[in-house]
């Protein structure tokens, strides 16, 4: 696997904790939402940065209790067509003002690269054969019709804003901030 960096964020190094393993003091760990909800303080008190592993079936209301404490999030796509993953990322950014890294894992396809970026993802875990196609897909479209939660304004707004530029070279996303 290789990590595709969509926004230029400093990716988080972390340990994916198995169910029966406790975090080491100060360690960055990723844990399932269920476990975070059940054993909340065990993690947030001991570990370093805590990330939630969020499945696409997670009701977003489950994020209420934990989103404010997360350092990063990993959204797992069981299939590339499971669009709930996009809404979860949007929810994190929009409803919780989440600023940490959002990573996509699972069989997402290169042609989704810009969809992921625009829904608020920073990074994607992909198989190494897909790296080139993913990177090519990132520079394919000059602009989009939607404003997104990563800070890009829509073509509709750009049309009427003097001096406004659009583009997905990263400006307007994280690199600018």
């Amino acid at each position, binding site marked *: 696997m290789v990590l595709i960096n969509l926004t230029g964020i400093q990716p988080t190094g972390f340990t994916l904790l198995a169910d029966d393993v406790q975090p080491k003091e100060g360690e960055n760990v990723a844990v399932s939402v269920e476990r975070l909800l059940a054993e909340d303080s065990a993690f947030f008190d001991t570990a370093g940065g805590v990330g939630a592993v969020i499945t696409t079936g997670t009701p977003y209301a489950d994020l209420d209790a934990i989103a404010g404490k997360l350092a990063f999030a990993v959204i797992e796509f069981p299939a*590339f*067509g*499971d*669009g709930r993953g996009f809404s979860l990322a949007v929810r994190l950014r929009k409803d919780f003002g989440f600023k940490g890294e959002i990573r996509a894992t699972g069989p997402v396809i290169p042609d989704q690269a810009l969809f992921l970026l625009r*829904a608020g993802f920073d990074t994607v875990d992909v198989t190494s054969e897909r790296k080139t196609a993913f990177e090519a897909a990132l520079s*394919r*479209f000059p602009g989009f*019709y939607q404003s997104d939660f990563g800070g890009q304004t829509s073509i*509709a707004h*750009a049309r009427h804003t003097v001096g406004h530029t659009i583009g997905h070279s990263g400006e307007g996303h994280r690199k600018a901030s």
Partner: protein
Amino acid sequence: MYAYDTYDHAMVNARVAEFRDQVDRRMKGELTEEEFRPLRLMNGLYLQLHAYMLRVAIPYGTLSAGQMRKLAHVARKYDKGYGHFTTRQNIQYNWPKLSETPDILQELSDVEMHAIQTSGNCIRNVTTDQFAGAAADEVADPRPYAELIRQWSTFHPEFSFLPRKFKIAITGAAEDRAAVKWHDIGLVLKQNEAGEVGFEVLAGGGMGRTPVIAKSMREFLPISDMLSYLEAMLRVYNEQGRRDNKYKARIKILVDAMGIDEYRRQVDAEWEKIRHVPIDVPEEEVARIKAFFAPPPLPVLADAATEVDELENANFVFKAWLANNTGAHKVPGHAHVTISLKPHGGIPGDATDEQMDLVADLADAYSQSEIRVSHEQNLILPHVAKSDLPALWSKLDEAGLGTPNAGLLTDIIACPGLDYCSLANTRSIPIAQTITERFDDIKRLMDIGPLKIKISGCINSCGHHHAGHIGILGVDRRGEENYQLLLGGSGAEDASKAAILGPGFNEAGIVDAVEKVVAVYLGEREDDETFLSAYRRLGPDVFKEAVYGTD
């Protein structure tokens, strides 16, 4: 009509380049068919029974003469000389070669057309009233809003991988010619008491295995809130729509399961959170798009034209065409004209390259270079001066496009069925052909009056049989093609679900059954009663008796 600016062009051209690369990788074997499938589907390219099929979007059914010429050119150069206009105001080509599809899309892009989101689990081509901008009974032209939705929904970062496909229809007139109540979301332009224009919003309609008529979400939504409200509706659906069973994945199932009130509550809660995020476009953008749909500069003319009266008196076919295929225009002295793609014995919705070229020429000569496609699979010239009608009709008639049957029994909607479609149980086209041959008598058809027959080759209902005054559904009965007969559906403002009358028939039997149903109507009708009103008054029993006999 809307015209692309550099942003729109750049977007569609980038899409063609992307698709060319994908096809290239597929041809070289770098992509397997399994990997390629979702990519081609996102570009409207299906694999059918015999060949690939390319579905090209005709946004809200509006075309220029130049675009129609391009469609004719594509039919001639890349296909077998014809195209098929669909119930979703699109056109399908049945025989493109995979290697040539990027070239087709490039040619289409040159005239501001594309195949984006004509398939896949995304927001599809927004459909509307085929007489939009022309009909006398319109509150407002729905097309600027359809274009806004087209742009907002194109490559939407969040709603491109929904539980299932998603169809939105808009109408601007009280008479619903866009079947909005049969859509995932229906929008009806209305004026409120203060004289402001906004939408009634409907949700959860759909056909398929579980036909449902849409329910009202809001009586009045201001236009400026349209996109944020749609976004809230789509978000709740994207998160909670079922993904475990594709037959239960449409929004109609979600709305039924949670109830319209709960769905509305959740949408409203979400909408409150996003109303002030700049999803809705700036006012200047709405004004920019609206300007493209400004009414054409038609002169006000006398409503009576001597040329028309003379030919009407001399020629019965013209008289029939005038009565059935033309309608009241906003501007006095003009009419909108329906060009029937339902010649008796022909294939509903098919047009040859020559016919498409001719329609383009006629649009240039008589209709401000504008053409429309209806969900009933006909073509429309929206802005014709009445004094031009005789000349227009004779040119259409010569080319086999003058069938005076719009809105009558032989103006049949039929899906492609087993002649093309890999999901079909039965053929649909031959049933339509046999029925239209059986009723090939314009006097008889006019006596019968408005009657909509709709035929689907399987329960996916692409032929809208649930909404047919007479619906025909192809089923598989132990390996035999079998046709069920349904009565009493409507796709209009008085939407209703057609009900199955009784056991199914074979190919000959279904045509006889239709004839018996019509005979019962003619015998039982009162005064000017239409077929649908008579059926609603009489109920199914007398039809059942006539069709199945009594024991």
